[in-house]
C-alpha cells in the first residue's frame, strides 16, 4: 500500500470508531449498520464500507462533529478517497490500477486522439453505394470481432476485480435471496432516495435531482446496450441487416437510450459543478468528469449518426462513434464505471451480512 494511502485507512478507522460510538446516522444508508456489525476497521472493511457509501453527504451535514469541530468528522470525503483507492487495488491487471491516478487526463487524451484519428480516417472514406450502409464502411465481421474482443477483455477484467473484492471482504457463497435483495437496491437506487427526500447533493438541501439524472444515465446506458444486442440478434439469427427503419426496435431503443444518455450525464455534470467541495474528494473530479464526458460524447455521436446516416457525413461520423464506443468500453474497468460494479458487489455483501446477522 503506498504510504499516502495508509493515512486514508488510519483516518477511516478513526472516523468509524467515533461513528460507532455515536450511531446517530444509522438510518441514512447501509454504511452505518454495516459499521455497527464490526468492532475493528481493517483496510478490507473500509474498502467494503467505502463502496457501500454513495456520497449523499447526509452524514456530513448531520454531524455535530464535522469540521471545524476538533473531532473533524468527514465520512463522505474519507470514504470517497478510499473508494478510488479500492478501484486501483482491485484492478486487473494490477498495473492498470495506475489509470486511476490521472484518470481524467488519460481518458481525455485517449478519447480525443481516437476521435481525431477516426475523423481523419473516416473522411477519406467515400459514402457507401447503399445509403446508411454501415457495413459498407466497416465489414460486419470486423466490427463484431473488434468489439467482441473488447467486451471479452472488459468482462474478464471486471470479473477478476469483483472476485478480489469478494475474497478480500471474506464473502461466502452467494444465495438467491441475497441477489434479489441487492438487485432491488441497485435497480431502484434505493439509497439515493434517502427515504423520499433525496440526497443532500449537491449541497445541504435535499433533492432528488441526482437520483433522477442517475436513472436517466443508467437506463439510457442499458437501453443503448439493449439496442445493440437486439441488432446483433437481428443480424446473426434472422439475417435482417442494418440500417433498420426509424420505428424498428433497435432504433427506438437506441434513440431513447441515447437521449437518456445525453440528458443524464448533462444533469450529473451540472450537479457536479455545483457540488459542495467539502463533501467529496476534490482529486476525483477528473475521474467523474471523464466518465460523464465519454458517455455524453458516445451518445451524441450515436444520435448524430442516426440522424445523418444517409448523408455524406456518415463514414466520418461512424468512425468517430465507433472510436468513442471503443474507448468507452476499453476504459470501463479503469474508470468511474466500476463504481456501479463494486457498489453492487458491496450491496450484495451487505445483503449477505444482514441475513447472516439475522440468523445468528
Amino acid at each position: 500500500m503506498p504510504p499516502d494511502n495508509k493515512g486514508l485507512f488510519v483516518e477511516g478507522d478513526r472516523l468509524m470508531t467515533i461513528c460507532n460510538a455515536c450511531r446517530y446516522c444509522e438510518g441514512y444508508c447501509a454504511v452505518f449498520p454495516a459499521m455497527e456489525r464490526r468492532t475493528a476497521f481493517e483496510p478490507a472493511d473500509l474498502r467494503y464500507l467505502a463502496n457501500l457509501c454513495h456520497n449523499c453527504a447526509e452524514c456530513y451535514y448531520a454531524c455535530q462533529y464535522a469540521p471545524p469541530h476538533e473531532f473533524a468528522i468527514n465520512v463522505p470525503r474519507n470514504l470517497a478517497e478510499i473508494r478510488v483507492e479500492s478501484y486501483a487495488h482491485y484492478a486487473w491487471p494490477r498495473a492498470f490500477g495506475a489509470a486511476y491516478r490521472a484518470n481524467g487526463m488519460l481518458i481525455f487524451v485517449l478519447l480525443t486522439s481516437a476521435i481525431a484519428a477516426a475523423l481523419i480516417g473516416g473522411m477519406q472514406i467515400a459514402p457507401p453505394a447503399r445509403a446508411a450502409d454501415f457495413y459498407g464502411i466497416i465489414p460486419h465481421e470486423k466490427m463484431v470481432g473488434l468489439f467482441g474482443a473488447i467486451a471479452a477483455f472488459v468482462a474478464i477484467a471486471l470479473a477478476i476485480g469483483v472476485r478480489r473484492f469478494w475474497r478480500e471482504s471474506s464473502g461466502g457463497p452467494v444465495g438467491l435471496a441475497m441477489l434479489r435483495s441487492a438487485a432491488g437496491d441497485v435497480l431502484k437506487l434505493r439509497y439515493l432516495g434517502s427515504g423520499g427526500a433525496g440526497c443532500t447533493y449537491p449541497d445541504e438541501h435535499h433533492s432528488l435531482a441526482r437520483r433522477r439524472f442517475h436513472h436517466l444515465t443508467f437506463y439510457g446506458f442499458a437501453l443503448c446496450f439493449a439496442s445493440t444486442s437486439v441488432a446483433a440478434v437481428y443480424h446473426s439469427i434472422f439475417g435482417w441487416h442494418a440500417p433498420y427503419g426509424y420505428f424498428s426496435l433497435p432504433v427506438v431503443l437506441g434513440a431513447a437510450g441515447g437521449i437518456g444518455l445525453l440528458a443524464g450525464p448533462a444533469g450529473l455534470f451540472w450537479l457536479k459543478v455545483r457540488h459542495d467541495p467539502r463533501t467529496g474528494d476534490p482529486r476525483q473530479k477528473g475521474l467523474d468528469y471523464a466518465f460523464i464526458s465519454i458517455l455524453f460524447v458516445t451518445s451524441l455521436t450515436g444520435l448524430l449518426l442516426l440522424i445523418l446516416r444517409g448523408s455524406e457525413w456518415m463514414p466520418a461520423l461512424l468512425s468517430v462513434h465507433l472510436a468513442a464506443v471503443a474507448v468507452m468500453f476499453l476504459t470501463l474497468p479503469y474508470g468511474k464505471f466500476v463504481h456501479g460494479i463494486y457498489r453492487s458487489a458491496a450491496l450484495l455483501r451487505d445483503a449477505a451480512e444482514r441475513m447472516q446477522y439475522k440468523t445468528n
Partner: protein
Amino acid sequence: MADQFPEFDVLIAGGGNAALCAALNAADSGCSVIVVESAPEWCRGGNSRHTRNLRHMSAAYPEDEFFADLHRVTGGRTHEHLARMTIRASANCLPWMLSHGVRFQKSLAGTLHLDRTNAFFLGGGKALMNSYYQAAARRKIRVLYDAEVVDLEIETGRFRSARVRMDGRDLEIRAKALVAAAGGFESNLEWLEEIWGPPARNFLIRGTPYNKGRVLKLLLERGAVPEGDPAQCHAVAIDARAPKFDGGIVSRLDSVPLGIVVNRHGERFYDEGEDLWPKRYAIWGRLLAEQPEQIGFSIIDSKALGCFMPSVFPAVRGDSIGELAAKLELPVDAVCSTVDRFNAAVAPGEFNHGVLDGCRTHGLPPEKTHWARRIDQPPFLGYPLRPGITFTYLGVKTGPGAAVAMQGGDVPSNIFAAGEIMAGNILGKGYLAGFGMTIGTVFGRIAGREAARAARQ
C-alpha cells in the same frame, strides 16, 4: 451604534431547539422574526445539536405513565399542572415537527428500552436543527450568527430591545416581544466555580461552549422570578479524555456496571450495580465530582467486552491488574487489594447484563448488588472517568403561556421563555431521557405563538 435593523415583531435570543420552534411558530402566525444566535453557523443549535430523541406521549405511552416517570425522577419536584400540560402537548409534537422538515428513524441500536417512549431524529439533533434552519430560511426569518445578546432593555416589566454583540460591535435590535431560549449556564466556567468551588475546574462540559447563561442572568437581574435549584446540575460519567467542551454523546462510557470503579486512591466508593445503567448513569457525575480530583477509573476484564457500546477512546490495557493500575497512574497495591477483596466477595450467580441479575457481592463495603463477576480474565481494561455536565437547573419562572413571571409583575408581559432556560419549572431534579427536547418543543411553540399575540397587541 446606529440602528441597522427595523423593529421586529419577535426577537428570539438563542438558536437551539426551543428558539427555532418559537421562531417558526411566530413566523407561521405572520410575524417578522429575528433569531440571535451567539454561536457561529457551524456550531449553531446549542445543546440541541447533540441530542438524538424526544419523549412523547402516545397510545403506547399514556399521560399517566409519562407523568409517573417524571414524578419518580424528579422526586416530586415538578409543577403537576405544567407537567401534565407539557406531556399532553407532546402528543402532537411529531406531526408539527414533520411538517417543518424533521425526519425520524427507528430507535438506535442499543436503545431498545426507549423504543416505546421516544422518537429518534434521523441523523440526530444537528440534522433536526438543519431542518429547522432551512424551514426558517423559507419563512424569511432573519438569523444572526456569532451574535451574542449582551443586554436587554426592559422597562417596567416590558421588553424594548436587545443589545447584540457582533463582530466586536454592539447593535441595538428592537422588537415587540422577546423569547428567551438561550439555554442554561453549563458552559460558564466561572459561574460553575462560584457554585461548586475549585472542583468545578475538573468538570467537562458535554455540549456547546456558548451556553454561558448570559440571557438567564440578565433576566434575573431585570426582575424575573427564578425557578429551579441554582446549585444543581445534571452530570454523568464520561471519558476523562474527552475535550473540555462539546464532546457530546460519544464521550459517554457504559462500562461502569460491568466492573468496578475506583478513585485516585484505588478504592471503590459506590455500588456500580445498583440499577440498570440507563437509570443510574446520571448519578455518577455527582459521585465523581465528590471524589478527589474529580476522577474515577472504570476497571473491567475481557469478559465484559462486547457487553457495552463501543467507546471512542481506546481502553488502557494491562495483562495484570498491577500493570493496568500502573498504566492508569494509580497506586498499584491499593488497586490490587481492592480487586482481590472484590473478587473474594463475589457470590455465585447467573450473569445477565440485560436484567437485574442475582450476581452480587457479600460483605463488601460498598456492596455491588448486580452484575458482580470476578475480574480475573486478562487483558484487563481501564477507562478514566470525569463528571460531564449536561445542563443546569436554574431558570426563570413561567406559566403555561410561557410568559416570564416578573417580581411583583402585574404588567402584561411581552417576555417569554422556552427550553432549558425554564425547564426547572417542570424538571426540578433528575432527568428523563428525551424530556429536554420535549420541553423545548412544547414551550418553544407556545412561546412563539404567545409572542406573536403579544406583538400584535
